């Protein structure tokens, strides 16, 4: 019987903890009776997570003028949804810490993801989108399926990386040839298994073929373009040294001016080191 993305995700979940605090928070905010104290209480049940969140919101990336000392205060200042996204990002980074450096430099992998996150949010602002923090987490987690492949099928994933480097195909095409499916299908399966928002599921699934997006074509198009911009510079390395193919329809959908892109990427460059350093620091907490 051939391997499926769903079976691979199930196998991977034996090693990777789901983002349980995020899932609890997601349930909580659906409840109209929930209060800020309830959200704080859930986060504070994981002291290591709470400490890390406070470090992140007090970092130069956010640049708030005064110290934020409690989760309640962080929610008030940063906002519930953005803090939830930080919870999710932190949980995913921690869950996949075991990927061997011989396969891929994970600092480089995350640098690509952070840059895609920042770029996606800036593109969303350029497009006049509201609630742009959702584009940040969509960019950050667009390659979540690669993490499963690196962790659960390291030999085949490594072969796909080498094939993209030395062969005549991009990484996701090499994955399809070698494994039978690629990181986008695995990312979709994982996002569904973890009950992540539908928009994140679509971004994980369609960021290399945005014209297939069903309910969130703008989200998918923005991350598709962000991934291309970041790969062109490049910022970090997700496993492929090549710029992924552009879907011109996605670019047309966003109605952006290409001449603005270098300036936007300059802003990304100004933010990326601050974000990487605070998100990737391993502390004793």
């Amino acid at each position, binding site marked *: 019987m051939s391997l499926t993305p769903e079976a691979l995700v199930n196998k991977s979940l034996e090693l990777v903890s789901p983002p349980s605090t995020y899932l609890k928070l997601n349930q909580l905010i659906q409840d109209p009776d929930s209060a800020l104290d309830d959200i704080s209480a859930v986060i504070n049940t994981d002291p290591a997570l709470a400490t890390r969140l406070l470090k992140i919101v007090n970092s130069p990336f956010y640049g708030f003028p005064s110290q934020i000392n409690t989760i309640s205060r962080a929610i008030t200042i940063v906002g519930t949804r953005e803090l939830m996204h930080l919870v999710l990002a932190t949980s995913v980074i921690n869950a996949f810490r075991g990927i061997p450096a011989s396969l891929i430099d994970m600092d480089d992998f995350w640098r690509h993801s952070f840059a895609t996150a920042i770029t996606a949010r800036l593109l969303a602002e350029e497009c006049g989108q509201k609630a742009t923090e959702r584009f940040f987490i969509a960019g950050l987690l667009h390659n979540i399926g690669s993490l499963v492949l690196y962790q659960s099928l390291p030999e085949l994933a490594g072969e796909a990386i080498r094939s993209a480097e030395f062969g005549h195909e*991009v990484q996701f095409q090499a994955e399809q040839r070698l494994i039978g499916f690629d990181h986008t299908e695995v990312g979709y399966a994982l996002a569904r298994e973890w009950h992540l928002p539908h928009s994140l599921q679509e971004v994980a699934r369609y960021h290399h073929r945005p014209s297939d997006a069903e309910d969130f074509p703008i989200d998918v198009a923005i991350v598709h*373009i962000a991934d*291309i*911009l970041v*790969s*062109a*510079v*490049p910022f970090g390395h997700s496993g492929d*040294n*090549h*710029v*992924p*193919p*552009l879907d*011109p329809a996605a*670019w047309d959908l966003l109605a952006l001016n*290409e*001449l603005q*892109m*270098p*300036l936007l*990427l*300059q802003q990304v*460059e100004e933010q990326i080191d601050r974000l990487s350093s605070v998100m990737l620091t391993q502390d004793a907490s």
Partner: protein
Amino acid sequence: MSQSPLSEEELKKRQERFRYVDLNHPLMQVLFQMQLPAKKQPEQHL
């Protein structure tokens, strides 16, 4: 944004990086030619 021409070495690197994209697309033309300003290196303390 710096507009100096790309060195031969950089040109080769970019041709490889942009191997799978259509360089006739206006976005790709801008990205291919783009040069972000060099980042300041931190001072070395011996």
